[in-house]
């Protein structure tokens, strides 16, 4: 029996809901300061070109322009893992949309006018738009200086003289022997285009580069400390000089991890002598200038025994980074060590490459490579099962990981690692899976013009993070016994501050309405947190909050022990009181301790109550460069989606009748928040599955940088029924046993649809997205023709 909690697991409404729906929550776009200037970028019209000449004199001469900068003015190298980027393009542009100049002016209108007056002379170069072509050792080099770029050497391995900025390897068992043993070998290729995160709030920042190089940054970002760290690194500033404030954020989905517009806006402020400068990306810039999700082309080769056991798996992943490495190298690394999915392989070999191309660069995106990876992997597993004539459910059950199994990086799974089988079982059961549809049945159903199909797909993901990833927080008790939590992991729409408040309520037994989680995070005020990414906030940040509560309780116990002349271990905490265990008449209300306890005679002891909590993952290791062996993962979250679709066989349009989503979350902290994450994730996964993609012309110009041409699902496209299912196999390290589950609902939605369409129509789709005409075309190629029967 699991422990009964008063607050944990309950569907507590979000504590930020009222401010957000009334418009009172303040975002960067809402903010302004005295003397503030407005910035505008000039972006490259070419995908690959030399900048022969650039002239800002007409822009500078325009009334109201305070500064105009070009790449020539900014000799700084920036980058997250691979320092390969400049703040504005220098010498050449590497993607259509890359900023080449920027202006700060009294009004946005003047800034917009000024950038149009900047004259740039380009010499067009041939763009590399195909990842396989760019991967070729003889291809033109997008970054000829790759060999001299500084980078994180423990994790990333560039190949100078090529366009390959990272190569991750996993080697386990004997892959050749595995394929020799196999009865059947299946090899197929899969493909994913780039897509946009589409946060409701675009990227934006206000920066004031003040006197004495004291810099203040207000930014729409996920990770204030990482912005500060990378900013200091770029400009060689000491961390105490830079203050990063993150107000309310309208979504990020990974696109606001790391650092983006802040250095440019900082330089514009510095150029104006320290006036605050504001830059808010337009939606077009969000598509075209700020990063997207990387593209992926990959091959999966599987060796199978007739009884359904997998004996060998070889994966080759070509990640199209776009023009700069940013997060792509780490997406490559994480998807590399996860590439097998939650299956056991006696022999596995994975090569995951990051390849520069002349397209919009890629970054972190909810799922961190796994949405793309699992599209092919889970389509592939269905294909393998059918090749063997085994039910795809049974085939998966034969090969899924269980405690005691060794993963491709050599990690031995434990009882607390989670239960993928329960997830698949629950999801498949929910849609009533009863085996594959026969061709005969299919032909029969075709006569009605509508055919239904069922499919499922499993998933897993661990946080991709440095080995020393940590969280910390401070809980301050106020005069009336209420508390304030300062934590710099951000709630950028993920909703995690609500369960943090629940944790304090649970640990301290304080009512929720006396707990405030400070939304606007501030590196000057709040203690360190690495980044709000990788579904790690709830399990790891939650542990820091528990530890801070324990620290607070320890301090309260020490004072109460003096008052009652007993041991600090003699107390319980209940109803906002610290109470003596064996003598409940002895108690003190929290508010009487908050700023120091005062005896009747006026003597005071203790002092203001502040609880400090830190949590760091321990035991993680770097991965071996040649074999990928090591321990990369804090925890794995397993899951499965199961879907029933109905296809209109004459138009290829399809409707998702039901999607069941089972995740082993370890422990539900807030049922409503988690359900929201699942529904949101499914819809986002659906978007990349059915309609979203970047389309370039043959010169590398992005053709669809708007909502008109790059569509995302609307309320009317939501599946008719969504059923979230939570499996709770507690994880030893996570808060209350919880695992991260923020990204996971998005992963494997696409292959579950693909597999359901396969079941319905017998068609094999290998490219995302799946549009009506793709289904129609695949059906036509299969030569199954619908003959309408009656009016």
């Amino acid at each position: 029996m699991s422990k009964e909690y008063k607050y944990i697991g309950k569907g507590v409404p979000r504590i930020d809901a009222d401010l957000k729906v009334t418009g009172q929550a303040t975002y960067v776009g809402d903010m302004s300061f005295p003397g503030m200037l407005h910035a505008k970028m000039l972006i490259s019209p070419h995908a690959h070109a030399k900048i022969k000449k650039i002239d800002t004199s007409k822009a500078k001469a325009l009334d109201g322009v305070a500064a105009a900068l070009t790449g020539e003015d900014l000799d700084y190298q920036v980058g997250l893992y691979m320092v390969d980027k400049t703040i504005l393009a220098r010498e050449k542009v590497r993607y259509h949309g890359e900023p080449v100049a920027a202006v700060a002016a009294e009004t946005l209108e003047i800034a917009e006018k000024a950038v149009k007056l900047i004259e740039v002379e380009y010499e067009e170069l041939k763009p590399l738009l195909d990842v396989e072509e760019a991967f070729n050792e003889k291809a033109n080099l997008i970054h000829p200086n790759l060999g001299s770029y500084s980078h994180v050497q423990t994790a990333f391995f560039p190949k100078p003289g090529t366009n390959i900025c990272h190569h991750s390897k996993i080697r386990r068992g004997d892959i050749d022997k595995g394929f020799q043993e196999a009865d059947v070998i299946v090899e197929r290729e899969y493909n994913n285009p780039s897509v946009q995160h589409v946060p409701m709030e675009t990227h934006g920042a206000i920066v004031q580069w003040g006197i004495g190089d004291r810099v203040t940054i207000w930014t729409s970002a996920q990770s204030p400390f990482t912005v500060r760290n990378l900013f200091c690194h770029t400009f060689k500033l000491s961390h105490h000089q830079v203050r990063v404030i993150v107000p309310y954020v309208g979504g990020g989905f990974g696109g606001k991890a790391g650092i983006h517009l802040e250095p440019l806006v900082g330089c514009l402020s510095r150029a104006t002598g320290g006036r605050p400068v504001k830059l808010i990306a337009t939606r077009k810039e969000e598509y075209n200038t700020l990063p997207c999700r990387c593209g992926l082309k990959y091959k999966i080769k599987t060796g199978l025994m007739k009884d359904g056991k997998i004996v060998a798996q070889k994966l080759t992943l070509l990640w199209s980074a776009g023009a700069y490495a940013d997060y792509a190298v780490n997406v490559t690394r994480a998807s590399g060590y996860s590439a097998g999915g939650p299956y056991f392989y006696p022999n596995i070999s994975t090569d995951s490459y990051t390849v520069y191309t002349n397209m919009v660069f890629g970054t972190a995106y909810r799922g961190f490579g796994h949405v793309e990876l699992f599209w092919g992997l889970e389509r592939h597993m269905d294909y393998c099962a059918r090749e063997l004539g085994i039910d795809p459910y049974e085939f998966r059950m034969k090969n899924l990981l269980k405690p005691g199994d060794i993963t491709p990086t050599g990690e031995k799974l434990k009882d607390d690692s989670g239960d993928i089988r329960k997830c698949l079982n629950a999801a498949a059961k929910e849609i009533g899976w009863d085996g594959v549809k026969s061709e005969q049945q299919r032909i029969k159903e075709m006569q009605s013009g509508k055919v239904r199909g069922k499919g499922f797909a499993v998933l897993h993901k661990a946080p991709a993070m440095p080995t020393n990833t940590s969280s910390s927080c401070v809980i301050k008790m106020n005069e009336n016994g209420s508390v304030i939590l300062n934590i710099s992991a951000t709630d950028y729409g993920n909703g995690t501050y609500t369960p943090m408040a629940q944790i304090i309520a649970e640990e301290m037994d304080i009512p929720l309405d006396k707990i405030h989680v400070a939304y606007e995070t501030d590196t000057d005020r709040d203690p360190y947190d690495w980044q709000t990414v990788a579904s790690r906030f709830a399990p790891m940040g939650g542990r820091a909050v528990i530890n801070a509560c324990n620290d607070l309780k320890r301090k309260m116990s020490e004072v109460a022990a003096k008052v009652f002349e007993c041991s600090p271990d003699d107390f319980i905490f209940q109803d906002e009181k610290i109470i003596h265990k064996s003598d409940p008449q002895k108690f003190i209300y929290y508010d009487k301790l908050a700023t120091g306890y005062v005896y009747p005679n006026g003597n005071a002891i203790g002092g203001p109550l502040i609880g400090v909590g830190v949590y760091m993952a321990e035991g993680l290791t770097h991965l071996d460069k040649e074999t990928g062996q090591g321990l990369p993962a804090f925890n794995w979250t397993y899951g499965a989606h199961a879907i029933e679709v109905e296809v209109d066989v004459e138009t290829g349009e399809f409707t998702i009748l039901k999607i069941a989503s089972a995740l082993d979350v370890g422990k539900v902290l807030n049922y409503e928040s988690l359900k929201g994450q699942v529904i949101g994730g499914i819809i986002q996964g659906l978007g990349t599955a059915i309609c979203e993609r970047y389309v370039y012309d043959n010169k590398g110009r992005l053709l669809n940088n708007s909502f008109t041409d790059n569509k995302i699902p609307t309320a009317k496209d939501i599946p008719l029924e969504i059923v979230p299912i939570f499996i709770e196999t507690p994880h030893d390290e996570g808060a209350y046993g919880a695992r991260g589950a923020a990204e996971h609902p998005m992963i494997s939605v696409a292959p579950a649809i693909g597999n359901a369409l396969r079941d319905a129509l017998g068609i094999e789709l290998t490219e995302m997205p799946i549009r009506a005409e793709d289904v129609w075309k695949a059906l036509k190629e299969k030569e199954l023709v619908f003959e309408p029967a009656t009016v």
Partner: protein
Amino acid sequence: MKPFEYISTKSINEATQVLSEYKQDARVLAGGTDVLIELRRPHAKIPKAILDISYIESLNGISESDGLIILKPLSTHTQILKSDLVRKYAQLLGIAASQIGAPQIRNRGTVGGNVMNAATCADTVPPLIALDAEITLRSNGGSRTMKLVDFFIKPYKTKAESDDVLIEITFPKLPSNAQSAFIKLGRRNALSISRLSVAAILMQDKKGLISEARIVPGAALPTWMRVKEAEEMLIGEKPSLKLFTAAGQKVSEVMISYTGRRWSTEYKEPVIGVLVRRALEGCVKD
């Protein structure tokens, strides 16, 4: 964006006066769902004046008179889809209006704007042409009335002069023996411009034979028109799947004869036929 003059008026006479002064340098603003977006385009041609006619009360409303429905141009898509008159006498127009954009766009966007902007994907136009609508334009020089089907030259190009204001759309009420349908194919279920659409009206005589047929595809032909070749196949016939399928194929053939073959033809060629068949099926329900 360049500055422009904003002129608002409450009278049609004043509106035509302003237009005769500015001619092609003025742009008429009704709901703004097209104009305001176009103004923000990177290389938008910014007019010298924006003439806001949205406050002219006499240009708003849906009424009936002498067997005609009178649709004033400022009627929004929301007004149309909620109108009892439309539901009773021009059902296909209500269906089309209900599928335009999203609620916000339907609340602002007007039927007059849809007609005057003349975008290929304008969803109210195929039903109005099927309904045999006429429009009345007024300028300083007077009024003129023409068939809506004759009004369009090509996408975004009409026979309206730069000083014309659209003041009325009229069409005969559909008789009780008529049924109508509108089907649209978009890339998603809302906020989606039509990739293809079909407006259809069928009338049957007492014997159940088709006495009148009107088929107007949308986003399929260079300009809107009734596909007479397909309509004629239906006259005097009894509704049947075979007949409707053949009519659909005929529309598809006509489409190809105008547009030629492009990358999307492989898909659109059979699908327009399917949509026509389904629209006709929708006209013989009960």
